[in-house]
């Protein structure tokens, strides 16, 4: 049975923890709103970009002279997995769910005899993957100093990946991130970025401009395509980063909400225990006094 003093200290400590988790929850809620806004504002660009690129890509594929970024290197032996996670913890299963998905993919690819390389964005995923796959990790993009995610950050990451592709370090690149669905639901998603795939974009492009619109290209199609494809990679990474940021805040918000509620329950339980033992001490003292008086 813990002493009264211990119980009191315990309750105090849980109370201050509750204050912290409550504050974190509110901060996450505010950041979530900002992250969602950022994600929304980036959407028009990404949609138009994919629509244009999708149209171009389809044309180039038909012509049969597609650049490597679009058509692939002709092999799928080496896979690069770009695992995007958060820089900070305390966000529930956010990081674990991405890592679990990436790990399943690694096992699957290795089982099929492919070689795998890992590039991590965000500290938490690196820590989790390092334990098992330290020898597969080729690089890490550090975003811990970034306060507000900008397109520049995505472009730098894309640049890094593209240089490795040019150097022939891998054949297929896939990004892993959490797609934001709602505060309580984030869906781990894998998207292949190299060679580029525009399934969704093509549909949109045809729907928006109609199949009748035939564009003139200036300079010609291949030049534009060569210039746009690397940007397409950056755009995809950027929207994935934004989705991930919104998901992270959403996950943290619900995790902290749970923690706050748990702390409240614990405080209630401990307070009852504290009151009981205080009452027991009082009763004990009374008994001692009374039996002392009777003995006189």
């Amino acid at each position, binding site marked *: 049975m813990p002493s009264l003093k211990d119980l009191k200290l315990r309750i105090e400590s849980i109370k201050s923890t509750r204050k912290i988790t409550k504050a974190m929850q509110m901060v996450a809620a505010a950041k979530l709103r900002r992250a969602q806004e950022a994600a929304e*504002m980036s959407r028009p*660009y*990404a949609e138009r970009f994919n629509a244009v690129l999708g149209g*171009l890509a389809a044309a180039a594929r038909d012509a049969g002279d597609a650049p490597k970024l679009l058509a692939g290197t002709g092999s799928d032996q080496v896979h690069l997995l770009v695992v995007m996670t958060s820089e900070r913890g305390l966000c529930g299963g956010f990081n674990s769910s991405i890592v679990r998905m990436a790990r399943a993919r690694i096992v699957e690819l290795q089982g099929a005899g492919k070689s795998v390389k890992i590039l991590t964005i965000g500290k938490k995923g690196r820590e989790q993957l390092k334990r098992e796959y330290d020898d597969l990790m080729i690089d890490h993009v550090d975003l811990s100093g970034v306060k507000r995610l900008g397109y520049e950050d995505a472009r730098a990451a894309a640049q890094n990946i593209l240089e490795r592709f040019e150097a022939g370090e891998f054949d297929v690149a896939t990004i892993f991130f959490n797609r934001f669905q709602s505060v309580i639901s984030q869906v781990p998603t894998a998207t292949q970025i190299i060679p580029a795939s525009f399934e969704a974009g093509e549909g949109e492009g045809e729907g928006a401009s109609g199949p009748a619109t035939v*564009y003139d290209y*200036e300079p010609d199609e291949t030049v*534009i395509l060569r210039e746009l494809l690397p*940007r397409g990679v950056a755009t995809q990474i950027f929207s994935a980063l934004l989705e991930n940021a919104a998901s992270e805040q959403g996950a943290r918000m619900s995790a902290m909400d749970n923690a706050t509620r748990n702390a409240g329950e614990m405080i209630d339980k401990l307070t009852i225990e504290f009151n009981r033992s205080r009452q027991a001490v009082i009763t004990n003292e009374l008994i001692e006094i009374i039996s002392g008086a009777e003995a006189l």
Partner: protein
Amino acid sequence: MADTMQFDLVSPERSLASMAATAVRLPGAEGDMTAMPDHAPVITTLRPGVVRVESPEGEAEFMVTGGFAEINAAGTSVLAERAMPVSEVTSEILDEIVAENARAREAASGDEHDMLSKVAAELLALGEELGISVKGIG
């Protein structure tokens, strides 16, 4: 013929402008061009320069550092990597972009180097056009 068309300027981070325009002058990679309503569908890449929008409400100018434009009969969309109203451009911002370009140029070689050199020259011209001094490039 319609009097106005839809003009949209979007960057990856936000949508900068969405308005009705009578004419849009674009710094196309192969020369400036002006898009008016019912223009033939064109997709062109952009060089660093100024996008001038004429609308019934007046003129608006935006600096873009590159990207591309999609023009069709209904409207013009500019997708710029980096864009801002000309009034917000300062020599610090231009310097930064030029420095970035210089760094990229050092790392690049061959065709890419030539392309970036061209971009650098265009950035200088852009500074001159806006009357903003830009630090020289080595």
